[in-house]
């Protein structure tokens, strides 16, 4: 009995002292970008700079909550997210610190970074409209607003409102039209749903190809992934589904960003800034374009492959900070509209 307790205590103590020894030339990263999509870049960073890294992946809000509760002793140096909403929230929560870097100011255009340098966008994507080539008139679905039209004869698919991309889209509706109109839009959209919101963005595009719905809203890079795929099922989806850049006649297509910021608690600020700078340089930017079919924020880097094939478009020029402040409100309105 006593031995058992002693043993347990030794085991527990052992863990307590397996403390994280933080080496000076290591950058600790909290990332909501999935490991397999960022690790190649980080390995390249290590090779090029000799700075090692440690990576913790998780969902954006969970990482934010963690940063908040760990306070100034947080081991994190850099926060990377796949949506600008969580970066704005992180700035508001006081877990990011401003960075002034000539490299970043040169590589990242002003509308893709925070005014005060708390966060920098690293790749851009648009939330666009997909349709079935064989049965949908693209003229009828040229804007986000048109999808909520009571006279629309097409079934619309979109994923759950829990998804931050939909929250950002809804936030942009609030920013452009005000709460009341935005709620009406969401209600109209829900009325046109072909099915209960489910699955991820790729699933929406596939559902159009499968005939479960006629029109879908999803991020741009998912289509690029399907175009790049060598599976015949994916090729069939691309054959059957085309895309529309929304609102080209007025404000432009809604944009979102992946990005990064240096944490308030960072013990390796220099390494952290180096990492973000590295991610904004041409080779990393080209990786975003080539591997994940996103739009490089660095104007010196051209979109490649599938991204280029998807064509040129006008993005929504409204500052993302001005959109994202409506995120929490957006979710409440979507709840009220019955968008699950």
């Amino acid at each position, binding site marked *: 009995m006593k031995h058992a307790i002693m043993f347990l205590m030794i085991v527990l103590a052992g863990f*307590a*002292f397996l403390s994280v020894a*933080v080496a000076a030339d290591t950058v600790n990263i909290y990332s909501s970008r999935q490991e397999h999509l960022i690790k190649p870049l980080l390995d390249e960073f290590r090779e090029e700079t000799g700075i090692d890294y440690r990576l*913790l992946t998780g969902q*954006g809000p969970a990482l934010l909550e963690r940063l908040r509760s760990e*306070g100034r002793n947080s081991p994190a140096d850099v926060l990377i997210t796949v949506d600008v909403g969580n970066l704005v929230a992180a700035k508001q929560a006081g877990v990011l610190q401003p960075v002034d870097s000539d490299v970043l100011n040169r590589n990242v255009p002003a509308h893709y970074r925070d005014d005060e340098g708390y966060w920098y966008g690293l790749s851009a994507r648009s939330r666009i409209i997909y349709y079935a080539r064989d049965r949908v008139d693209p003229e009828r679905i040229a804007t986000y607003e048109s999808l909520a039209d009571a006279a629309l004869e097409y079934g619309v698919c979109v994923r759950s409102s829990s998804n931050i991309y939909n929250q950002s889209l809804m936030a942009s509706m609030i920013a452009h039209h005000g709460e009341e109109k935005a709620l009406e839009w969401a209600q109209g959209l829900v009325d046109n749903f072909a099915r209960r919101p489910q699955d991820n963005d790729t699933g929406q595009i596939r559902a159009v190809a499968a*005939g479960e719905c006629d029109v879908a809203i999803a991020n741009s890079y998912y289509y690029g992934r399907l175009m790049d795929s060598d599976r015949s099922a994916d090729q069939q989806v691309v054959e059957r589904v085309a895309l529309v850049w929304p609102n080209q006649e007025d404000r432009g297509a809604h944009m979102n960003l992946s990005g990064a910021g240096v944490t308030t608690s960072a013990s390796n600020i220099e390494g952290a800034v180096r990492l973000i700078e590295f991610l904004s340089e041409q080779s990393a930017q080209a990786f975003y374009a080539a591997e994940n079919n996103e739009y490089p924020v660095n104007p010196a880097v051209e979109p490649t492959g599938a991204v280029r094939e998807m064509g040129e478009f006008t993005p929504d020029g409204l500052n993302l900070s001005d959109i994202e402040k409506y995120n929490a409100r957006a979710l*409440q309105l979507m709840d009220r509209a019955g968008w*699950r």
Partner: protein
Amino acid sequence: MRAWTLILWSIAAVVAAPVAVVLAYLVIPAGDVWAHLAATVLPGYIANSLVLMFGVGAGTLVLGVGCAWFVTMTQFPGRRFFEWALIMPLAVPAYVVAFTYTGLLEYSGPVQSLLRDLFGWQSRAEYWFPQIRSLPGAVTMMTLVFYPYVYMLTRAAFLEQSVSVLEAARTLGRSAGSTFYSVALPLARPSIAAGLALALMETLNDFGTVQFFAVDTFVTGIYRTWMGLGEPGVAAQLGSVLMLFILALILLERFSRKGKMTHAVGAYRSIPRYPLSRPAAAGVFMLCAVPVFFGFILPVTAMIVWTVQTLDFVDTRFFSMAATSLYLSGITALVAVAAALLLAYGHRLRPGGLNAAAVRLASMGYAVPGAVIALGIMIPFAALDNVVDDFARRYFDYSIGLLLTGTWTALIFAYVVRFLAVSFNTVESSMAKVTASMDGASRTLGMSPSKTLLRVYTPIMRPSILTAAVLVFVDVMKELPATFMMRPFGLQTLAIRSYELASDGLLRESSSSSLAIVAAGIIPVIILSTMIAGSRPGSRKEKKTTDAMECEHDA
């Protein structure tokens, strides 16, 4: 004797602390967020959770109790196979089954593709096919993998029943069916209830499956409130409500058990199995074959095929992830079972209202969703870490980093809080087997309470202790939300990898990680299965049991 009260309360206090933090949020006014939830989404959360609960409850009872009875008490072809095979789905996490069936049954999956080829359909609009991502789909998935909880505990109870009682019923003119309903079932009721409670708690806490299937339950609501609305406090309040609801269920079960007969007589011999007629045997065979096939054989086969097709996702990192998962699970199982034993025994030695409350408090974590526990641990632990680190900085001018949240400690603590109820329920219901006269004999012969625990209780309860350990082990292997939130740097488990890939739509690519979870989970499940078969006092398998147990220790 005072020491036992102290042990009891220490464990309870440590384990209940996160639960207390979560509950503390109940008294913090939430304002209009509650009103918003109640007016919009909350009714749906509650309705879906209830349907899920009743569906899975009914399903697991039928499959679990039915199979346990036939496998233990009757003779039919394949019985010895089903004896252990029926436990196998326990090794498969609900979300993994959900991924696999989605992969199989979705539009581009093999089933629908085959149908389209056969009938020349071009599009989904041309034919009807059941929607796997739905509430009935979720009920089916969870029933398929949660019924072993009921099966295992019920079967253990049937095996522990004295054959003389059953024979007495037969002698008094009862048929096999009537013996089952009026004798075996009531006797096994505490175990059935414990198994059902486990299955239902798993159901109410499940996140992966319902999230993937787009079914809004209480738990997805908790996540959504926290993640989407950015209201961790309100999320913790939802968690508190859910916890109180589950607590009410448990109390109801305990209350209804009062005044029922429990049985412990020393006369045992091997069970004479009822022979079954040919059609009856076929029916029983089907009953047992369905959950084994759909809960294990089919999904595992699909995962194997997909793993082979996506072999480049299996690399050396894979084995380090597997080791991490095994290590975390093993340590947690050890700690959780030791704590459960101490709790149950301490409570037995020092019963009483206050101590009973302490024990209940300590085993409440299972009713709390993993992420809410994580929240309840992260907040106080981070504060403690920060205090300690500040102290070190001030007096030694040296930062020692985050000792608790930066290491495995916090994570394992979360697991123990979450799964102590699993080990405790099992250990406690088996402790009833040790009669007061055994206690008395041991103590009269000069054994101290702790020696009595080690030399009398532990051997008698060995099968249940191992059952408890394996249940915790497998649960930790599958655990997702708490791991996600609390894992320190560099810690990557198989479950996280599998979920990340699947939620990204890479269902086939996720199957290698899923398969590894299942594979790691199978070994203890097999050992456990042998245990239960050999656990019947007087069984000729006694020797085998000891061997298998030593394997377990080595593992």
